[in-house]
């Protein structure tokens, strides 16, 4: 009967129910979009690091992220290779560069020089062409999200990076850059050539450990051997990149702030409507109390009202959020929805509605059953 009474109280006033659901819907959509953007940003920031087959990253001292790192001198590679426990060391080059469009104009890109055959960092999710085409003359691989920004339209189209000619050899899907400067893959040597870098220079050295369980000890050994460089595990480099882009720049704080704002707005709206619903049903709650119900029984009715509001609002809110997620998929700023985020949002919504019920519960706790005689 508690659930039935809660449901009937809820649907009794359709207008108020609509206001409640709209409040929850806005809250859910706002939180979903903000957290989805956060996850999307995270995915973009750490995508390269997560997809590289490396246990340890050697960078120049003070490297902030994948995109913002200085150049290593070249000697580090030999130091690393001579360290016990190292299976392979693969250099890659990463640098901002200018992309000159075939029809005129230019745009900033992040050039990634890598030799996939060496087991370092290979382009993934290749949807048009094949990854091995990277070894063909002047070949570059870009993500299809950016081909319009790059001024190209199909495989084989040519452009320039700095002063060197390049040809679009393959397209990937979903390799997006948080900096909005598209990642362009090419071979290690071609990248050095385009950037006019010495042949043994690199931005990162990707280290593969002989024994994955030995990574912490190997990190210590490498740090001791390469005092002028940063030696980071994959997790540490991911953490450093996220710290830089999401927190040092304030971008992540804005996204999380937006999500918190959404929660507050939702909580206030649900609290207000639950409180006013409880006030409207005060005589009924007083009657229940007069009939001998415990205060816990009445609290359960209110909490169920809050829970049902949460569930209905969540379902509608998630439906709207999924539509937005779908339309954002092919944009440069995709919103990511994971099963964990969906489950977390449900828990957040229920929590938000439970918190909202507090004011109504406080009101009903002070109820005087004697009011049933005063009507």
């Amino acid at each position, binding site marked *: 009967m508690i659930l039935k*009474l809660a449901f009937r109280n809820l649907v009794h006033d359709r207008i108020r129910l609509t206001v409640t659901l709209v409040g929850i819907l806005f809250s859910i959509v706002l939180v979903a979009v903000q957290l989805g953007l956060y996850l999307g940003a995270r995915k973009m920031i750490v995508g390269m690091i997560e997809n590289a087959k490396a246990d340890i990253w050697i960078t120049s001292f003070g490297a902030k992220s994948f995109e913002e790192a200085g150049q290593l001198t070249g000697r580090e590679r030999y130091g690393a290779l001579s360290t016990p426990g190292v299976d392979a060391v693969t250099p890659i080059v990463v640098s901002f560069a200018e992309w000159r469009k075939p029809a005129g104009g230019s745009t900033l890109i992040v050039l990634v020089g890598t030799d996939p055959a060496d087991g370092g960092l290979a382009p993934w999710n290749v949807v048009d062409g094949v990854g091995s085409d990277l070894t063909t003359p002047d070949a570059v691989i870009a993500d299809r999200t950016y081909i319009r920004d790059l001024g190209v339209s199909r495989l084989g189209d040519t452009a320039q990076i700095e002063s060197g000619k390049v040809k679009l050899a393959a397209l990937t899907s979903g390799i997006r850059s948080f900096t909005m400067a598209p990642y362009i893959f090419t071979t290690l040597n071609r990248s050095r050539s385009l950037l006019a870098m010495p042949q043994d220079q690199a931005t990162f050295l990707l280290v593969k450990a002989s024994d994955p369980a030995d990574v912490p000890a190997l990190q210590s050994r490498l740090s001791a051997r390469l005092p002028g460089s940063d030696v980071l595990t994959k997790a540490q480099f991911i953490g450093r990149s996220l710290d830089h882009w999401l927190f040092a720049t304030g971008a992540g704080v804005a996204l999380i702030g937006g999500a918190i704002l959404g929660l507050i707005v939702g909580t206030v709206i649900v609290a207000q409507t639950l409180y006013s619903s409880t006030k409207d049903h005060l005589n009924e709650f007083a009657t229940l109390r007069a009939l001998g119900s415990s205060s816990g029984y009445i609290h359960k009715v209110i909490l169920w009202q809050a829970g049902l509001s949460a569930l209905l609002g969540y379902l509608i809110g998630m439906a709207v959020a999924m539509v937005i997620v779908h339309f954002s998929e092919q944009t440069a700023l995709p919103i990511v929805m994971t099963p964990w985020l969906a489950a977390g949002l449900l828990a957040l919504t229920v929590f938000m509605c439970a918190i909202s019920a507090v004011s109504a519960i406080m009101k009903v706790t002070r109820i005087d059953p004697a009011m049933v005689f005063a*009507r």
Partner: protein
Amino acid sequence: MSAVLEAQGVVKELGQGAGKIRALKGVDLTLEAGELTLLMGPSGSGKTTLLSILGCILSPTEGTVEIGGENAVGRTAEDLADIRRRHIGFVFQQYNLFPTLTAHENVRLALDVRGDRGTAASDRAKEALTKVGLAHRLNNYPRNMSGGEQQRVAVARAIASAPSLILADEPTAALDTENGRAVMALIKEISRDKSRAVLAVTHDPRTLPFADRIIHIEDGRIVSDERPAPSAGESAAKPEATPKPAPPPASADTPATIAPIIVRVEPQSSQPASTAPPQQISIRQKRKNRKRRKGHG
């Protein structure tokens, strides 16, 4: 007959400081099973306060209240709710049904509050509604029922859990003559249960013929406590003060064996009691009485 409720020296002070008033000034009352007792009195006399205390909704400032042998004084709000749940059924002036629930659900809710659930509770709710003549209205919402029917649902809700005490607050005040009489007949019927006492607060003189006992309260004190003289065939219940019989209203529903009476005991309050003899009733009052009798006919 056994005592269902015993109240001794009940005093209730309301308000604080200079605004404090004594709503009840030492009320002694025992309610016996199998009786319908009417509690009458002018506005502000303390009827509702006394009903609230006897119903374990308010606690007295002084005095003792025992319901079914259980002390109801000095208990927490949750303890009092528990006593209400186990011993008391309420019938309210405005029915206080839940508008979003059907008649059957309204009765089931009262059982649910007591922890009675499932098919057995559903059957008991149906049984209670059948007892009050609403077997055909189980699935109707209060808004689709007349005032009389709603009050009968309220009576069914009160009796469904078989409480030992039923307290009714002006049960006929919101009803027309016919429905008021029907509801009183129903309340009279349920009061015949030898395990149950019924106390009804009322202003309505139409309820008098149904009473086994009539208590008048004025200025926070019981000023009369009468048992109307039973007619032949009824078991005698001696009145504690001299009743002045009055002619019963002509009504087919009025129990023929009960002689309605008007009882007057000198109040012990500072206010002078009315001593106007019956023949000094005003013309307006006579017209009202005539209309009322027509209504009964």
